[in-house]
């Protein structure tokens, strides 16, 4: 009878130990998986934020370069037109002077 009681008590402890051992293994496994998932998620979010930033930076760079190109082009064209008109005007003045001399 005493042996039976002893075995029963020991069995209960062994059972409890087994549950605890599995519990420990499972909680570590769950926590590790969760931490990995969290890290991955954090990285994903960081990459997305950086992608948006970099995209804006590239866009800004191109816009600034293109705006400068367009401005230079427009100013150059306006200057060319002005120079052309000045040249024409000068020619007219010269023609007028020549005409006056001949007269």
């Amino acid at each position, binding site marked *: 009878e005493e042996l039976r009681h*002893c*075995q029963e*008590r*020991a*069995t*209960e*402890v*062994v*059972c409890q130990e*087994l*549950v*605890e*051992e*599995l*519990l*420990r293994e*499972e*909680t*570590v496994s*769950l*926590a*590790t998986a*969760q*931490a990995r998932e*969290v890290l991955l*998620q*954090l990285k994903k979010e960081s990459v997305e934020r950086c992608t948006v930033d970099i995209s804006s930076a590239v866009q800004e760079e191109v816009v600034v370069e293109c705006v400068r190109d367009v401005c230079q082009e427009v100013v150059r064209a306006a200057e060319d037109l002005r120079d052309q008109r000045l040249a024409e005007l000068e020619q007219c003045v010269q023609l007028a002077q020549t005409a006056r001399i001949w007269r």
Partner: protein
Amino acid sequence: MADQERRIKDAQMRATINQKLVETGERERLKEVLRTKLIECGWRDQLKAHCKDVVKQKGLEHITVDELVAEITPKGRALVPDSVKKELLQRIRHFLAQQSNI
């Protein structure tokens, strides 16, 4: 004195049972059964959800695996259904009953 003697005998018995369980591969089989039962009864999913809550609460950046384990273990313990524990105990008893030299 009798109490101490009983504790010694209990410890010896525990060691014998454990040895038998390990030797026969029953210990690993029992753990596997227990693992399956815990998945089936939703324990793992519940604990996973709790784990997510803890991470959300504490902030994604500021928790280590060890802290997380410490945080979720009490809940994990509490969530193990009594029926699963009872079944495990029953299986161990059954195993021991089949052993001639215990």
